[in-house]
């Protein structure tokens, strides 16, 4: 562990508090925050940054997270003072430049997804999901169809899907996947009915394969009066090639912090824009950006969209993230956008083949990989006791971030690997060589893996102790 910021403290006399505020409203306990010198702050946080893996420093094949290069030009553009200094309550005529960017992004995302309308406000994927299923709820309610309490969600879905459905007041029914990765249609048919509001899917699914019967699923769900929600976390796989709107989805979110290359920032912020078909437009979350006849842009409010599901943040959403997504899309353009899925798929399928060649087992060997794929190391576990966790930790020793592990929970001892289109063949080849070495180590000296990582500032941490002691703030 690095020194703590609390080690850098200098003592200054206290600040006199204003006398025109009654004493009973003022601070009672002194503000016990450290007073480091600026150079100490600079060194401390620079050193901490050096203890992180990141896209800018390491290969980061974290499945489902689309850790592609975050172009620096997007950061520079979002930081331009003309955007950064804008107060959210600036009257629209004085912020036309920003509104223009947001309006274009709405249009482009609608075009890229094959949907009719977009609201950019949700702050992340999960908030987009909440807004999306809330629109499904509002749609049924507006038709007087009040009995639709259930939301169908595949067992392999991301945890935010059932959590969002639950927050929107739905009861979640989980649907299993078949051995080939496709959805269990018989189970689906059994559960469709007048009490089902809709289904939440991502395609390609979290199993890293394309749901081939999507048109059939859409027809069945629509036939039963339900709507289809598309979790856009995996859009990188099909960008410019297949549109969720064309697959039959009614509403979706996009993780702009995945497909549109905005950074993850060590946990966020992201942006989870929602896109809908025409029949859901009246329910979009606010504000959106609207254009008047003369071309002037303004925020759309409740007066104009009275049946909106409302607002999910105090202002217009994570605008700085939206600016980055806009810059990325504008840089790529129509041709560049279509290349994204092509090279994401090429990298994933190449890596899968190469890893199979060095002995790893694919979870769905007969299927084409999408932009990501799943390996299972159950064979290693049977032979040596080595688990996916051990492989993941050993990778860190080679300066490679671990893939996603134990998600989806359906596949035992799984690694979900997503290389993204921005990685070169040389990087992928090095990854394959390292994975081959790790496999050999697993067979010959498994303790090397079990005790990994060896070369990082800390080894495996005692998570049980962390939860028991619950030291979550520095003692005063």
């Amino acid at each position, binding site marked *: 562990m690095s020194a703590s910021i609390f080690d850098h403290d200098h003592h200054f006399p206290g600040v006199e508090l204003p006398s025109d505020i009654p004493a009973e409203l003022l601070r009672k306990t002194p503000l*016990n925050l450290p007073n480091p010198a600026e150079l100490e702050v600079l060194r401390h946080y620079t050193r*901490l940054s050096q203890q992180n893996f990141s896209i800018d420093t390491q290969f980061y094949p974290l499945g489902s997270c689309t850790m592609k290069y975050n172009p620096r030009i997007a950061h520079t553009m979002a930081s331009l003072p003309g955007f950064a200094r804008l107060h959210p309550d600036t009257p629209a005529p004085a912020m036309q430049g920003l509104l223009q960017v947001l309006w274009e992004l709405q249009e482009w995302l609608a075009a890229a997804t094959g949907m009719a309308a977009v609201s950019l406000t949700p702050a992340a994927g999960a908030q987009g999901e909440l807004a999306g299923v809330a629109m499904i709820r509002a749609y049924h309610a507006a038709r007087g169809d009040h009995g639709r309490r259930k939301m169908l969600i595949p067992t392999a879905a991301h945890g935010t899907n059932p959590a969002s459905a639950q927050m929107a007041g739905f009861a979640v029914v989980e649907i299993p996947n078949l051995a080939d990765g496709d959805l269990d249609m018989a189970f689906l048919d059994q559960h469709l009915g007048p009490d089902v509001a809709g289904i939440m899917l991502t395609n390609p699914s979290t199993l890293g394969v394309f749901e081939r019967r999507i048109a059939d699923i859409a027809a069945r769900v629509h036939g039963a009066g339900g709507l289809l929600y598309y979790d856009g976390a995996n859009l990188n796989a099909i960008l410019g090639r297949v549109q969720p709107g064309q697959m039959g989805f009614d509403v979706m979110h996009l993780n702009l912090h995945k497909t549109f290359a905005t950074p993850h920032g060590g946990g966020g912020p992201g942006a989870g824009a929602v896109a809908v078909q025409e029949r859901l437009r009246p329910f979009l979350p606010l504000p959106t950006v609207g254009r008047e006849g003369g071309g002037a842009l303004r925020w759309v409010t409740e007066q104009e969209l009275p049946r909106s599901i409302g607002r999910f943040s105090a202002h217009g959403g994570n*605008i700085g993230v939206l600016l980055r997504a806009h810059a990325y899309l504008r840089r790529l353009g129509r041709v560049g956008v279509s290349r994204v899925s092509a090279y994401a798929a090429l990298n994933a399928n190449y890596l899968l083949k*190469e890893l199979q060649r060095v002995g790893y087992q694919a979870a769905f060997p007969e299927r084409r990989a999408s932009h990501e794929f799943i390996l299972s190391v159950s064979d290693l576990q049977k032979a040596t006791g080595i688990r996916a966790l051990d492989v993941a930790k050993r990778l860190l020793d080679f300066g490679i971030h671990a893939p996603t592990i134990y998600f989806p929970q359906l596949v035992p001892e799984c690694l979900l690997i997503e290389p993204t289109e921005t990685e070169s063949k040389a990087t992928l080849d090095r990854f394959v060589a390292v994975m081959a070495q790790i496999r050999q180590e697993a067979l010959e000296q498994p303790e090397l893996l079990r005790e990994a990582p060896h070369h990082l500032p*800390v080894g495996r941490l005692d998570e049980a102790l962390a939860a028991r002691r619950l030291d979550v703030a520095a003692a005063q």
Partner: protein
Amino acid sequence: MPYIPHDGLETAAMLAAVGVERLDQLFDEIPPTLLVHDMVLPEGLSEMALHRELEGRAMSNAPLRCFAGGGAYAHHIPAIVWEIAGRGEFYSAYTPYQPEASQGTLQVVYEYQSFITRLTGLEVSNASLYDGASGLAEACLMALRIQGGDKSILVPENLLPGWRRVLDSVLGLQNIRLVSVPYDRATGTLILPAEAGDAAALIIPQSSALGLLEPVDALTDWAHGHDLLAIAVVNPLALALLKAPGDWGTQGADIAVGEGQPLGIPLTGGGPYFGFLACRKAHVRQLPGRLVAKTVDGQGREGFCLTLQAREQHIRRGKATSNICTNQGLMVTAATIHMATLGGRGLQQTAVLCHERAALLRELLTAVPGVSLPYGGPFFHEFVLRLPQAAVAVRDALLGHGLLAGLPLADWGMGEAGDLLVCTTELLEEADLLAYRDALTSVLETL
């Protein structure tokens, strides 16, 4: 090809290894009827052309001296804050699910949690929520879980209307009733509610949408006297000056939430900001969002990891305390560096300066003929001015003088047509305040 490194030879070699001839064949499992043929997207731009286009857009947003607040505030951000927060190691890392490879982010969050607990006087802070308003919605859901069985929340009428709308949207989905607590039209501050009904909690803004400081001790004690939880809504910078929620009333507030933007986050038209949420340790299992704890590795070396993850959606799925996954991590990194750079002393000096400048501006503006103060109570850095003409028209006219003069309360459906909410921060110097006075005087004469 922007951001794609492959040359033709590499692509060919990789396709051959996969056993296909063309990139299109990688999509052969997708039914052909689903393939798109065209999308209406613009042509791509070079980085240079992109820079030029967006710089033009940015510059067309008129520069204004900012006297608007209402939940988002113009403050000075020391240069080192985004210099460090923008480092690739912070900027382009994922959530710290592999703690050994994420000690930097994890320690930053631990220090952030420590700072927030000290500002709020509560024991536990999470690692952030989306923004202040959605953080308040999460705090209400948390209070309902802690209390069990209750069906409503007491919401002050002088809560920021934008926050109230978020509560309506989020809590409405679970059929939770929001019961309004009125404010005294003469003083602008809250009237103690008549009854608690089936409420789980009372929301208590330290500084209301009218900029007035509320009697937080009495409100907290009233809540506890009726077996309700007290949810404090606070500005983190104001807490350098004002009473910490942990000290409110005889027992202290139970949960504190707020908008973190004043701590080093640029305004950027409304986001990204971050919501903070702190609570008592007794309630930690109902806390939404991520939490970082200090622990040790196998060799006894100290380190940090995410903890109590069984509260979260990736473990508990539909039964999680919240659906939140991606949070506002980088904003928290910036806020932590901001707080460390200013230090406890710098934060207090800034807060005092904001207050003093606001007091001075209030004096200057009320001396303008026809301008009055509808409320006389204590305030932090925002106050309501009553103008002799519609505040919307005056605000619009002042744009021509290079000023964003404030927020007309009429836009929020509050107060009278002439009411304007004005905010002053340390960024505005005496010359700016005098410029405001002069511009207002001339606009009122000519309108």
